[in-house]
């Protein structure tokens, strides 16, 4: 049943957006597609307003950094939920690190506002059109984006640990 729904949804998406569904898989029965970053609002808006699919809830929006994927280092992941169909899906869009920009989802889902701020806060992704894109969790004067892989997780002001014991 779930697989059928996933397949139908994927077919509908591929039919409506030919060439824009770059990749699709269903890990643990959870339809996951990759789309070009420029088309995020168009595709999500179609899913949200579609009479049948009715993806009316944005469960999550987050970022990810894969430094080894050249030209696609920075990703944004959207989780959508259709209450009506009891169906969930995941949408990924990848961008090059030096141009991590994507359109905001705040026009479609009010919930995207703070989640995009959080994603910006940790990954530095610019959400164009966001009404108030500033840090939300970290201190305002932080000068880097801490979840990017080039930054060490550990704090540099730590004084009671030495490299000898902790392998830094």
């Amino acid at each position, binding site marked *: 049943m779930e697989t059928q729904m996933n397949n139908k949804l994927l077919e509908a998406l591929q039919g409506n957006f030919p060439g824009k569904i770059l990749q699709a898989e269903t890990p643990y029965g959870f339809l996951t597609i990759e789309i070009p970053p420029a088309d995020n609002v168009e595709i999500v808006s179609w899913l949200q307003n579609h009479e049948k699919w009715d993806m009316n809830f944005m469960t999550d929006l987050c970022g990810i950094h894969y430094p080894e994927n050249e030209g696609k280092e920075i990703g944004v992941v959207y989780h959508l939920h259709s209450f009506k169909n009891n169906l969930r899906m995941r949408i990924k869009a990848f961008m090059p690190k030096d141009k991590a920009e994507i359109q905001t989802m705040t026009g479609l889902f009010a919930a995207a506002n703070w989640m995009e701020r959080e994603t910006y806060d940790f990954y530095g992704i610019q959400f164009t059109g966001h009404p108030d894109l500033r840090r939300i*969790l*970290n*201190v305002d004067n932080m000068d880097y984006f*801490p979840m990017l892989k080039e*930054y060490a*997780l*550990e*704090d540099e*002001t*730590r*004084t*009671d*640990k030495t490299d000898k014991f902790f392998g830094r």
Partner: protein
Amino acid sequence: MVNTGDKPEGFEGEGFFATSLGKVIGLARANSLWPLPFATSCCGIEFMATMASNYDLGRFGSERLSFSPRQADLLMVMGTIAKKMAPVLKQVYDQMAEPKWVLSVGACACSGGIFDSYSVLQGIDKVIPVDVYVPGCPPRPEQIIEGLMKIQEMAKGESLRRRDSDEYKRMLESYHIETS
């Protein structure tokens, strides 16, 4: 049984007792510390046990918790302090009147603890001066009580002029705390 504070050094005779003012004030301060609990995580839970009837911080003259920094003598910082919390902690410290003491309870408050991370302050002594550190993750109530007793010792032995000294002012300035 009621225990009273130990009598300071002095001359005693029939109907009189003479000692220095500093010692009397020290005795009074040490046995009526009003703590401000700045509890942010699990050490705060341990503090609740310390405060409750089994361990009873009231035995040390500290049963009156002050939830306003302006009436508190002792700032008890118990728990992880995120970097975003640091200015709040500093403001609370600023609002306390002299003389004031700071007790740092638990690994997180003392050094950041296990949270060696970009978001956590690596010890509250990065933003405010600390008098006594209580180690532990979390420390048992006995340890917190020992920390409080160390503060009492400091309060008892502190010179009345210490807070006016240049050394003390320099110390505050090193933390960028305004001195009047």
